[in-house]
């Protein structure tokens, strides 16, 4: 028995120690360093014109990319689960691509498609539309990287709920839209919400893809993560730490939401 207890403690020390050194201690340390000299230095950095603009641009990106990927995600999940055809495996494979591809490669792909000598460049230049080094490019990058989350979270829930209730509704005369709004969507809502939280967290924090397409111009094309990097590179540590802590708090809020949603889903 004592050897079992010994190995149990050994595993605890290894596992929890690993988490402490890798996740918890660094996170605690940045909160400490940020507020070492009080709350005003980080607050001033975030409320500087560049900081506020970065925050605003990040929120605009979230406001466009997340709803688009949510609608697409529900539609795609319905297609994959309820309309099985041979071609679905292709859709399934493409959906998973953004999880596996490097963000920098995603950024470069958009850069080459919309940039000078890119496929779309002549038409876009004629129409006077600027994609790269402006908001649309950032949004496109964020749509790409966060595309799979809602689909992936909705598919298992759709499979689980089955179709009995939907059939009952349609037997009672509900049309397809009514059935969707009153039966299907309420049944899958926690799964979708979980996907939305993951999508939002990813869009808020996207760095690699955005860094290639945005040019990171202060006060113009700088999202919050780019602001962090720029402030750090310019040795403005209060600015970098302040924005980091803001992003870390948002990430912790996302974690909390994920756990609450998981509990709702299980209930």
């Amino acid at each position, binding site marked *: 028995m004592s050897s*079992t207890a010994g190995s*149990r403690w050994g595993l605890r020390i*290894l*596992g*929890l120690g*690993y*988490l402490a050194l*890798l*996740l918890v*201690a*660094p996170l605690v340390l*940045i909160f400490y360093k940020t507020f070492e000299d009080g709350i005003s230095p980080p607050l001033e950095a975030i409320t500087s014109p560049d900081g506020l603009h970065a925050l605003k641009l990040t929120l605009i990106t979230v406001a466009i990319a997340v709803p688009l990927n949510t609608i*697409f995600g529900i*539609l795609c999940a319905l*297609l994959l689960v*309820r*309309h*099985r055809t*041979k*071609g679905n495996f*292709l*859709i*399934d*494979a493409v959906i*998973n691509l953004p*999880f*596996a*591809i*490097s*963000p*920098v*490669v995603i950024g*470069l*792909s*958009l850069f*080459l*498609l919309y940039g000078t000598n*890119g*496929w779309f460049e002549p038409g876009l230049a004629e129409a006077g539309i600027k994609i790269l080094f402006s908001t649309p490019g950032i949004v496109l990058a964020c*749509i*790409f990287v966060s*595309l799979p*989350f809602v689909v992936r*979270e909705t598919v298992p829930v759709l*499979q689980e709920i089955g*179709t*009995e209730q*939907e059939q009952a509704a349609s037997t009672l005369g509900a049309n*397809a839209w009514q059935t969707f709004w009153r039966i*299907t969507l309420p049944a899958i809502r926690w799964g979708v919400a979980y996907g939305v939280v993951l999508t939002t*967290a990813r869009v808020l*924090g996207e*760095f*690699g893809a955005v860094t290639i397409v945005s040019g990171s111009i202060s006060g113009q094309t700088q999202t919050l*993560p780019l602001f962090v990097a720029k402030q750090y590179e310019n040795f403005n540590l209060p600015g970098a730490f302040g924005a980091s802590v803001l*992003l*870390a708090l948002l*990430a912790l809020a996302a974690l909390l939401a994920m*756990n609450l949603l*998981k509990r709702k889903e299980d209930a």
Partner: protein
Amino acid sequence: MEASTAQAPSAPSAPRAGIRLPGVGAGLGRGVVVLYLSLFVLLPLAALTEQSLSSGLGEFWHQVTTDQALRSLRITLEASLIVVVINAIFGTIIAWLLVRDQFPGKAVVNAIIDLPFALPTIVASLILIQLWGNKSPVGINISLSFWAIVVALMFVTLPFVVRAVQPLLIEMDREMEEAAASLGGGGPTIFRRIIFPNLLPGLAAGVALAFARALGEFGSVLLFAGGLPDTQVSSVFIRTQVENGNNTGAAAVSVVLLLCALAMLVVVGLVQRWGSRHERSQGAGAGVGLTVMPMSGDEPAPPPTREDERE
């Protein structure tokens, strides 16, 4: 995709699934999905591939085999391999603690496992510097070295193995272990002969996903490891090439990374097919792959509903 809205050939006796795509027909829905994926995903990747081959295969090969490109690929591969081995071990230990052990604060530990999924990578870079950088309170400075890459990748890939192994541990039948123990098997033997083989599908899928993620990681490595020649992973190399105007070189190395990522996805798909055949619980749902993406919490992905189980 075929234009046909053919139904799955399964279970002709049961009445067909309740809701189809509301309002729009399946054909239109399929069209929208394919268009969305083409516009936002496939078209950019096609442009990337075209650029990498724009000066011919010879130039592609030349760009991929320059000293710097090869060195960045080697550093990326070495660091990724080390990281998946470390996280396979610690991820399994942590999953074990979360499923089989009881200790105060377990729910919190379970929740923070997903922190690397939620935390922006650039913030990860910054917080790791605080503990393991030149102002380290514990006096260990690994920043701007190869080990910074390893630690950064350990951070971002931590959840993959944990979340892939956890559901298998929850589902695992304790009786086999008890039988082994009653037959005189010790802890290590039981782990090696009973537990490990049962966890293998999840472990393999988690490792493949972690490996794919590690190969392409950028933000968490950038500030912590820097872009020195000896600490330049391929993603950082690609950005440097873009900044220097060498689009073809950047695209060529990107295509190599892309192919590695695709290979990892294929591995994940095969492992999951193998794992689900193991379970013998797959019914008509085989059409939808990847049900075990370890993205969402601790519950195992529900088995697909089978038509014949209704009623």
